[in-house]
């Protein structure tokens, strides 16, 4: 196992970095997109609600791999060349944003509707009330589930291996076939994933307990 770290340290480090980078980028954008669709879902405007519903249902019910491969394979044929890393990150963002939208929406709905009414009665516009009164409270509720989404994101980023995204799993496959030491390599890769996900997971459980 030490030999794997020793001989392939550079590749492992690169993979670890790419996995983290892709997860963080995807988290940021899926938070923005997901929150947007969550707000769409609770607006009084019907067409926005329909758009949000369709977006969420479609991308929650199609495998991440299909979405990612679509960006890697189909988009370059019609639109523009896109690297494996970019295709993977875009795929992850879209896929995760559908889940985040659901999480944020349930957070918004768990805020007492009286608050919205009260704020409106005090002369705030719908958007002002949403932004200053409802969303800050909603986000407090959804921090633990969002943390879990981030853990899923890190794990799901392994689809980059399918599109040559140079992430941890990709490097794992390369190292495994180069060293021919499959099981040990994958144990090393597993440990590296756990370094990111396990502490996060315990932290989220702690937060959940604290908030409950």
């Amino acid at each position, binding site marked *: 196992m030490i030999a794997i770290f020793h001989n392939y340290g550079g590749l492992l480090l690169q993979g670890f970095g790419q996995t983290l980078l892709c997860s963080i980028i995807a988290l940021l954008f899926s938070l923005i997109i997901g929150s947007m669709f969550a707000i769409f879902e609770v607006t009084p405007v019907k067409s926005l609600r329909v758009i949000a519903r369709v977006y969420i249902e479609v991308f929650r019910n199609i495998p991440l791999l299909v979405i990612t491969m679509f960006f890697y394979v189909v988009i370059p044929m019609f639109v523009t060349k896109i690297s494996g890393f970019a295709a993977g990150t875009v795929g992850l963002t879209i896929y995760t944003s559908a889940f985040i939208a659901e999480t944020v929406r349930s957070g918004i709905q768990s805020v007492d509707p009286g608050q919205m009414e009260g704020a409106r009665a005090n002369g705030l516009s719908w958007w002002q009330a949403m932004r200053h009164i409802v969303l800050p409270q909603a986000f407090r509720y959804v921090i633990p589930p969002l943390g879990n989404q981030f853990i899923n994101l890190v794990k799901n980023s392994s689809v980059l291996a399918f599109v040559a995204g140079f992430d941890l799993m990709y490097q794992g496959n390369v190292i495994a076939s180069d060293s021919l030491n499959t*099981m040990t390599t994958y144990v090393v890769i597993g440990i590296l994933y756990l370094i990111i996900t396990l502490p996060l997971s315990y932290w989220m459980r702690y937060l959940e307990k604290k908030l409950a």
Partner: protein
Amino acid sequence: MKDFINAYSWINIHYLLQGLWITVAVSVVSIIGSYVLGSILGIIRYVNIKIVSPVVGLIIDIIRNLPLLLIIFFTYFGLPNLGFRPSSVWATIIALTVFESTMIAEIVRSGIAAVDPGQMEGARANGLTYGQAMYHIILPQAMKKMIPALVSQFISLIKDTSLATIIVLPDLMHNAQIVYGQNSTYILPMFLMIAIMYFIVCYALSVLSRSLERRMS
């Protein structure tokens, strides 16, 4: 348009349907397996038995925090070291069952924990044993709370079968790749078709769960 007509020839569609069948069959077996195993693990974790529960808990935490892809590799390449040779279908079923049951164990544990502890005390005070109270009072209520989370986990499981293309499971995703690998004009039609097929299966399950929820409440 001509590409679509050619791509959706009966031979290709038939081949995709064979893949869909593998996807569905693997999913159904894994769903049943992971539900049973996950419930047992979840209860063990909740009941808090000395030594056993923390150990089980640690194993669950390690497995559920790894990418499924890695679990698939471990199962496919690792099982022969235990003396038997899994086909890619069985390797996928085992990997999915192990991985998803750890996710389900978490759902079950927090589902039981969410039931008011006063209920257990009340039932015990009324003369029920711990097991009776668990089985008749706590679990049915916990189940109701768990349904949405369980179903979305099962939907994830169906979608996740596609990852097993990496060990050449002849599922929907893999068969589509074989078809468009042989003729590049089929790429877009194949993607559309499999997206629709996955969507129908997963969406049907979520509709089913919603009606189940309504009936139970």
